[in-house]
């Protein structure tokens, strides 16, 4: 297991998620770890990565130490190529201009469905969460990368409420519901890197982080995981990755 004193779990998440982004891609990034990871990727290996924000921004370059408090603030537009209406930027997803959607999540299930609306279901919620924002639109219309903390209460067999669709009930149920494109591609946690089985669409482990065991991941997950035959091991964060990340977020706004 990666030594905790070297970096926080959020730093690990941000760095491993950043590696999933390729140069030249168009990525629709949510606030927090996604925004940070996309900006990190841009400064490390993907200088031509185009970042879109929900507030209506195409191709911004976030300034180190000036992370925006949401994706709807003026800081998101710094040195952008284009600022446009919020509906317009979301419609880019629908038209197909976006390669990857990238967001966090409160609760995820074995088919990659995300819940950010209700703990306990909509009729008698024990907690009313903020809701979907653009999450449902992004998850409905793009290939998805999700970054989240790995806890058993967050990795559940069936989410209480499908706010942002993954593969719904697995198999072809996503396409049959009217979502013929997109779907969950990767989930990055502080324990492992996940993909989804091509047929059943259930979550599978692609690589474990250094020092993490299969049992440890399974014990922290509320459903039976599939393990790839050739499950790999992720490379730990490099000094360079940590250095740039900490320049971007010196106050640990998103990486505490």
């Amino acid at each position, binding site marked *: 297991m990666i030594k905790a004193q070297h970096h926080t779990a959020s730093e690990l998440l941000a760095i491993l998620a950043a590696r999933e982004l390729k140069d030249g891609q168009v990525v629709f990034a949510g606030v927090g770890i996604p925004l940070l990871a996309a900006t990190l990727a841009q400064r490390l290996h993907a200088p031509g990565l185009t970042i879109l924000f929900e507030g209506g921004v195409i191709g911004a370059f976030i300034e180190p130490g000036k992370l925006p408090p949401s994706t709807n603030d003026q800081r998101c537009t710094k040195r952008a190529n284009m600022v446009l209406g919020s509906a317009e930027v979301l419609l880019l997803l629908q038209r197909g201009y976006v390669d990857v959607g990238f967001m966090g999540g409160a609760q995820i299930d074995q088919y990659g469905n995300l819940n950010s609306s209700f703990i306990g279901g909509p009729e008698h919620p024990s907690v*009313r969460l903020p809701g979907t924002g653009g999450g449902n639109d992004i998850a409905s219309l793009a290939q998805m990368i999700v970054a989240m903390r790995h806890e058993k209460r967050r990795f559940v067999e069936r989410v209480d409420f499908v706010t942002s669709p993954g593969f719904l009930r697995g198999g072809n149920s996503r396409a049959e519901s*009217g979502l013929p494109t997109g779907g969950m591609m990767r989930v990055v946690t502080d324990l492992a890197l996940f993909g989804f089985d091509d047929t059943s669409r259930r979550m599978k482990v692609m690589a474990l982080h250094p020092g993490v065991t299969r049992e440890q991941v399974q014990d922290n997950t509320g459903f039976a995981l599939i393990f790839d035959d050739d499950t790999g091991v992720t490379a730990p964060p490099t000094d360079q990755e940590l250095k740039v990340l900490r320049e971007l977020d010196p106050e640990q706004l998103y990486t505490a």
Partner: protein
Amino acid sequence: MTQSYLKLRQDLQRRDRSLREKVVTLEEATTFVRDGDSVGIGGSTMSRTPMAMIWALIRARRKKLSCSRCITSSDGDLLVGSGICDHMTTSWFNQGILWGVSKVMRHNVETGKIRYDEWSHMAVGMRFRAGAMGVPFMPIRSMLGSDVARIRPEAKEFTCPFTGDTLLLVPALNPDVALIHVQRCDAYGNAQIDGLQFMDIDLAMAANKVILTTERIVSNDQIRRAPDQTKIPFFAVDAVVEVPFGSAPHECYGIYEPMSRHMEAYVAQVNGDPVGGMKDYLDRYVYGPKSWTEFLDLIGVDELLEAVNAGRSIYND
């Protein structure tokens, strides 16, 4: 929920759409909103929120407002915490990203004091857009298959007669009145918006009445020199109010960033006690001051200047 086309047309025909001055005070502007109205709110999250207008409506003790906004921040807390709004239509309702879940939202929704109708962000936009275009719905390709659509029977699944695709038709949203804050407009209501526009143009065209608050009123001559910079036409506007710092403590693009010390103190206070803390906040910052300027005094010049300095920095190279 979708209004009759003939009713919408008649309401619009009755509005005085002539080129006329319509400058009023913040207090006078509150009379354009009636108890029970549906109210569309411009801006998004902590940006270009018409906070001064919301502040004035709370002071005017409006009742049973049904509010809609693409993404709702502490404006939503104040609307429901003050009791003037009992129904919120939005895609996200929280104070911001950084402070966990709003206890004011939780308290009011979980105890059934208010209704919170959740739609996807794009769906809210397409509902305003349908309203702006004078059609009863827009087709979209999101929300399908999710529980967000399952608990919104107001949206209808539909098989496309051209392609056989499954689409969702979301109903037009034509608020009785829209509250929109802009950087500048003329006395007739021709408005310029710098930077992020959010859904304000569709909202303005969809609403049956528009109250504009503006950082600054400029001459009609200035507007006419760059007519392609006008984002909302005068004939869609019913009242114009000049309110410097009209989005405080939120931001106004290019002019000021959010006033984070005030926001943090607010969040600590209301999340500590969503009823008592909110009451104290309203007493001190909303009911207490004699004017919006006095409210700004309570925020303090140092924090205003800091926000202005950060706000202008977006134009730095």
